[in-house]
Structures are given as C-alpha cells and as structure tokens.
C-alpha cells in the first residue's frame, strides 16, 4: 500500500493538487537564498532544510514518512523525511560543517525539489575507505560468511550515527551523535550480542557487563568493542588480536593501572551458567579411567573451579533456606496453636 503511494504517478497527482503551494515555496526558496548569499548551483544546508525541517513543506510534496526497501539487507523500513537541525549539528558530521550534499552526492546539481529515488549514501568509497577495507577483508567477516550469517553493513552497526534523527523514526533508537557516545556503545553490545548470545550472557555475568546491563555504557565501562576491537576482530588465541595475551595487558591497563600478566588471565566470559559446560565436565570426570587427559583438562580450566564454588553456593542456599524456612514456619504455626490453647484455658 504505502509503497504504491510512493510511485511516481501518485507524486504527479500530488503535485497538481499542491501546485500553487509548490510555486510559493519555490519563490520563498529563491528569496531565502538571496538573503543568505548562496552561490548559485551549490546547495547550502539551509536550502535543503527549507523543506526537510518543515513538516508542512515536506508534506506538500509527498509524505513526511516514507517506506523504503534497504537494498543491502532487503528489510522494509519506514523513515521520516524530517531532519532535526539541532540534533544534526551536535552529531559528529554536523559538527564538522558537512554539507548535506557532501553525503547526498547525487543532489549536488539539483535545486529546489529533487528526484526522489536517490542513491544510498556511500560511506565507504570516498570517506571511510580505511575501516571499510579492513572490515571487509577481516577474518571476522570471513567467518560470518562461512557460518551462514550475512555480515552487518556499516549502517547496520552504526544505526543513526551518520544520519539524522529522522532516519529511523520512532521505530529505531534515537539519534546517536558519536561512535563513543553511550547510546552507540549500548547498540554495539546488542549488535554483537545478536550473533554471540552465549558470550553476551557471560559478559553480563561479570562486573563489566553487569554495570553495562544496568544501562551504564559510558567509556568507563568496557563494551565488546573496547576489548575485541571493532572492525578487525581476531580470536583471542591469535597474538595479533587485541585480546591476545600481550596486547591484553595494554587494553586492560587503560582502565586498570598496573595490570600485569597475572591480572589479564581474568575470565571475562565465565561459563558457569552454560549447560553444555557441565555436560562436558561430568563426562570428562566419569571417563577419567579410560581418558585421563580429560581430567587434566578439567583441572587446568579455571572455569572448573568457578563452577565448583558456584554449585556449592547454590547447594548451600537451597539447603539453608529449606531447613530454616521450615523451622520458621513450624515455629510460627506452633506459637499460634499454643496461643489458642492458652486462650481456651482462659475461657474455662
């Protein structure tokens, strides 16, 4: 339905209906550009914002909301055409005096109303070829493809970052001005966590993740990307990885002054709540006669000791509370019975 509305035919109809207003707005645009001494040809931000900040102006030519199919992921998305200039100005790109046409390149020559089927903004080719290349060639992307995931696009991980409050409307998170802003960092945890569910859960089982899960995602609390890197992620067993033992000292040391080899042995992803881990542990323990290596493996895994303490405490908790709970209830019950008996005696 919506898509049909957006077809060009509809637009022509709208144009007829709103013909007069279109002329008026063109006129006002001209007057405006005179005021601001705009060089003819190149578009100032204010030219675009004439329409894009103003729901009425935008609405006159079509809709303030638009349904669109993301060419990369094929998702249907509903986006708003209204750009909040103030929010844009505080974003990383807005702050750096970018022109709208720097990114919306195919509008460079246009003036006033423009072609509505624009090319998607290309972040990678001209501006961010640096992370783009290392991301595409990274081992991480290769692994994703091998395992049958479609690797997220730049915009998939940086929702709202480069764009405008309008871009995602109400359905998506709010406008995110900076890559290291708390909103973006929260999104990072979710994007990584979508594919790495177990590691997200175990991350939240540790102090860093507990605080992050409570909504604190400022730079003081490490998110996945602080430890593993953002675009070029390698396995922690790889010495080049940010989580390789040597590099780890430096990464942890940013926040933990004096971090040394011993400190970075800390388990960031404890496995005490993984059912699979218990199963392998038990089978290793049971088959230790035929397979002594298994026992050695268990003994060398720091997670085993965490698990013993964890299970011990769960046992203690259940035992203690079942015993004392019963004790309290029985005492309570008996006291009431005794009281009643006492009262009966008083009556006699």
């Amino acid at each position: 339905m919506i898509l049909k509305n957006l077809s060009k035919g509809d637009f022509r109809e709208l144009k007829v209906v709103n013909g007069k207003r279109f002329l008026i707005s063109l006129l006002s645009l001209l007057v405006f550009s005179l005021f601001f001494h705009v060089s003819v040809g190149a578009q100032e931000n204010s030219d675009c914002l004439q329409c894009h900040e103003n729901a009425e102006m935008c609405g006159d030519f079509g809709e303030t909301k638009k349904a669109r199919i993301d060419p990369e992921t094929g998702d249907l998305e509903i986006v708003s055409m209204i750009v909040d200039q103030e929010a844009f100005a505080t974003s990383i790109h807005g702050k750096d005096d970018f022109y709208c046409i720097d990114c919306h390149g195919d509008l460079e020559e246009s003036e006033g109303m423009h072609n509505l089927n624009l090319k998607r903004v290309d972040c990678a080719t001209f501006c961010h070829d640096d992370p783009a290349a290392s991301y595409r060639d990274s081992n991480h992307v290769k692994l994703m493809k091998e395992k049958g995931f479609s690797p997220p696009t730049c915009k998939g991980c940086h929702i709202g970052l480069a764009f405008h409050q309008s871009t995602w409307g109400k359905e998506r998170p709010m406008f995110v001005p900076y890559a290291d802003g708390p909103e973006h960092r929260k999104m990072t945890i979710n994007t990584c966590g979508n594919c790495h569910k177990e590691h997200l859960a175990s991350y939240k089982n540790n102090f860093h993740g507990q605080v992050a899960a409570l909504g604190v995602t400022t730079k003081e609390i490490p998110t996945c990307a602080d430890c593993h890197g953002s675009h070029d992620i390698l396995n922690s067993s790889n010495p080049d990885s940010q989580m390789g033992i040597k590099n780890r000292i430096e990464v942890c040391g940013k926040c933990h002054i004096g971090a040394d080899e011993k400190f970075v042995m800390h388990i960031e992803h404890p496995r005490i709540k993984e059912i699979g881990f218990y199963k392998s542990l038990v089978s290793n323990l049971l088959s230790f006669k035929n397979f002594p290596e298994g026992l050695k493996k268990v003994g060398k895994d720091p997670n085993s000791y965490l698990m013993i303490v964890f299970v011990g405490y769960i046992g203690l908790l259940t035992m203690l509370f079942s015993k004392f709970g019963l004790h309290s209830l029985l005492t309570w019950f008996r006291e009431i019975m005794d009281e009643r008996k006492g009262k009966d005696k008083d009556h006699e």
Partner: protein
Amino acid sequence: MSDNTFYMRFSLFHRLGHFLTIISFFGLVLTGMPLVFKDAAWARWLYEVMGGYPTAGIIHRFCAVLTFLVAFVHFLWLSYNIGVKNKGNYLWGADSLIPNPKDLEDVLGDIKWFFGLGPRPRYGKWIYWEKIEYLSLMWGTIVMAVSGLILWYPVQAVKFVPGFLAQIIDLPSLALIVHRYEGILAAVFIFTIHFIHTHLLPDKVPVDEAMFTGRVTEHDLIHERGTQYDMLVKENKLHELKATPPSCMASFGCKLIGIPLLIIGLVVSALMIAGLLVLLI
C-alpha cells in the same frame, strides 16, 4: 509476672552496633543487588534511585567500611572482655554465644514441640537459632570483607596468587561469585528468617523492640527465656537488671523506623527470590 516490669537485655553499646549494622546492611543490599539482577526492571530502577554509576558503588564501599568497623569494634570489645576482664563466660557457658550441649537439647525439644509431642523448651539467654544467626553474621562479614576487598583492588589482589596457580585460579572471578552468592544468602537470610524469628512471630509482630530500647518485659523474659530467668532468680541477680520502662517516644520511634525497613526487606527479598528462581529455571 507483669508487662510493666522491664529488664535490661542489651546495653547501649550493642544497640548502637546493631543500629549501625542495620543502616550499612541496607545500604549494601540496595546498592549491590541491582548488579546481580541487572536484567530486571526493578533492578535498573533501584540502581538509578541509589545514584547509578559510580555513586551506588561509592555508597556500597562506604557502607562496607562501616560494617567492617562495627565488626572490628565488636571483636575488640570481645577480646577486651575475655582477655583483660577475664570474662571466660563469653566463651563458654550460659552467657556465651558458642553453641553448647543445652542447645542440642533445645533443638530436640523444639522438634518435639513442633509435632505437639511436648511443651516448648525453656531457652537460655541465647536461643540456638540466635547463636546461629550471630555466628553466621560474623562469618559472613569476614567472607564478604575479603572477597569485597579483592573486587575493590583486583589488580593488587592477583599479585598474591603464586605464579604456578595464576593459570588456573582466577581470584577476582572467584571473589565475584563468592561475594554475589554469599551476599544473596545474607540478604535473604536476614530479610526472611531473621525477620520472621525476631519480629514477625505472632508474639512479636510487628517489631520486637528489645534490640532498640534494650528492654524486655518480665512476661517475655519468663515466657521466652525461662532458663535464664530461673538462673537470674537463683543467683539473685534479677533486680540488678531492672530497668525503667521505655518511653512512649522510643517505642513509637522503633515502629516508625522498624516497619518501613521490614517492608523494604521483605519486598526486596521477594524480588530476589523470584529473580533467583528465574535464573535457575
């Protein structure tokens, strides 16, 4: 046997200690538990109410130091009394908090009483479950203090792990697990078992004021701690403990502070138990 005769049970020193423990304990639980149940909406709300990051952490540390100080002063007092004033009866006997054979009798007597096979035992100065609560508080404070310090200074703490163990013993993670579950244990224990035993039994509801005003009525003393009463009468010491009745204001103050704390404790422990069950399922 009247409700108007009062006897002193807790000195000001102990009441003050208990009061400070209450304050710091609530501070610790309210700032610590949100971290454990971080996925629940109430946890996020509570964390914000307690000041969020890093304020909640600072409150937590402040209360931790307070708890530690109270426990430390208590131990000083104990060693002074035992070592200098030679009060051996604090270590063993009717006045001591260390369990003795009479407690075993009381436990067995209680079990009979539960099933209606006998009268309620006549307890001494300290009932066996009071001893268990006291001893587990002391043990718990030590465990929480040690594991808490490791988490407070993780970088320094791992320096104490010998090199050959560093590969397999992850001290901060162990401390975190111990701190978390010992904390849950202590909080739920105090907020349910301790509250029921001392405040919510039909005799006492809503607040047992003894620990706040320091006084018990003669009726309660005979009814609850018959053995102690008999002994005091026999040793002719009862009149020494006689005290003025607590003022109306003190009694009102107890309820004013006690009842909200009871409610907060019960609500928090209900939320925690619900959260724990979800974790286990």
